């Protein structure tokens, strides 16, 4: 019973949402809308729950003085600090207003660190291009040619290099053609396949034969 009820709930909710796509009548549309209203706040609560888990995992590591425990304190301290200034010292719903301490932390801590973390990939991609891009097969050769044409053709240097040639064989023209026709065709094939995959998964979830999401934390 305890296991069956949630499965039935999933089925009812899923079918209602699907029906609301085909039936505009408010008898179906309004409950579907309410479900979406709830989904918005539940997902938000999910983020808060996730933060609680960050506390739990890192708190344990910090207290038990596991590897890198000193940094765990940095993590816990900065997280707590953000929440304290965000909840109590930044003007409530105006928390992201100019001049609030929370906005300062966003501008000068969050933004530069997140942006820099991801910019590291620029270096790694260069290194991987040299050390782990091998044209061993016809397939890889096709991939390489398309990659080179797009890399050069989509930036001004490609424009400069083939400036004098007839337009149809200029690099930007070739890059754009590759993108708009053959690569587009393959992406569409993938999209159709992936679309069917998602629909099948959705159906399995609604029918209750896919339940991996129902497992609880170990």
């Amino acid at each position, binding site marked *: 019973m305890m296991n069956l009820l949630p499965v039935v709930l999933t089925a009812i909710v899923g079918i209602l949402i699907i029906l609301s796509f085909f039936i505009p009548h408010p008898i179906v549309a309004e409950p579907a809308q309410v479900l979406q209203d709830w989904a918005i706040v539940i997902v938000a609560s999910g983020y808060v729950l996730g933060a609680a888990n960050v506390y739990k995992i890192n708190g344990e590591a910090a207290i038990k003085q596991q590897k890198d425990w000193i940094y765990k304190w940095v993590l816990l301290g900065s997280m707590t600090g953000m929440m304290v200034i965000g909840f109590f010292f930044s003007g409530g719903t*105006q928390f992201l207003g100019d001049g609030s301490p929370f906005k300062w932390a966003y*501008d000068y801590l969050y933004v530069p660190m997140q*942006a820099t973390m991801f910019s590291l990939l*620029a*270096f790694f991609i260069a290194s991987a291009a*040299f050390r782990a891009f091998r044209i061993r097969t016809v397939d890889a050769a096709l991939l390489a040619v398309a990659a080179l044409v797009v890399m050069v053709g989509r930036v001004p*240097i490609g424009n400069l290099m083939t400036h004098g040639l007839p337009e149809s064989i200029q690099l930007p023209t070739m890059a754009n053609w590759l993108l708009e026709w053959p690569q587009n065709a393959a992406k*569409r094939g993938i999209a159709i396949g992936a679309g069917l995959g998602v629909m099948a998964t959705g159906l399995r979830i609604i029918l209750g034969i896919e339940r991996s999401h129902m497992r609880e934390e170990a």
Partner: protein
Amino acid sequence: MAFGDTLEKVDRRWIFLVVALLVVIPLLFPLRLPLAVSGPARNFYQAVEAVPEGSIVVLAGDFDPASAPELMPMTSSAVRHLFRKNVRIIALELWEGGPPLVDRILHEIGDEMGKKYGVDYVNLGYKSGREAVMPSFGNSFSRTFPNDYSGTPVGKLPLMAEADNFTKTALFVNISAGYPGTKEWVQQVQGRFDVKMVSGSTAVQAPEIYPYLQSGQVLGLLGGMAGAAEYEKSIEYPGPATKGMDAQSSAHMFIVVLILLGNAIYFSRRRANR
């Protein structure tokens, strides 16, 4: 193959250093290489250009600082382009990390062009809920966003009284870094509410948007910083994306050289082993 061997075993930190130099030097000493505007970017420009003066456009800025260098220039250009045409903007954001970035753009350009908050533009701020927000927002802007970015009830904003769903808007501009983003807006809103839509995407996501272009689900596409630079050129207001194009070119050329060199070493070694 001693040279090849040395090269292949080279510490990758040397590669890192060259990448850094090839990005920084062109930024310091720009060449201003000529830029060509691609079809999808031209279509983006034309779709915005076709918006009747005075109408309302929805702008969803779904990104965070990680992709800001690609997407902020696009957002700025789109806002500038729309304001120039006296089009009013309703903005929203579905990525938790980015709302202040979009808000800054709106206010900076809004102030510069003499636009009034609440009348000429509104920033509805952030909502969680990914796909669940989208059809919900399409049904009613104000039900999904009862308050704006800074907590003002939307009932107090004159612009919001004019449009509460997509039937009253002329275009939907989505600036998107991934999930949730252009793909999900197309799936949940574009078809369902029959919305005219354009997309500015990170370069990583851009190839996946092409099928929507050919089908007409998305009317125009800006792909990555190059797309942003093309749009800056179209609206004749060069910004950071245009200024980044020399560095982008030099770094791309370096990666091309790395791929070719890596394979040259690999093939000569294979021949030698035979």
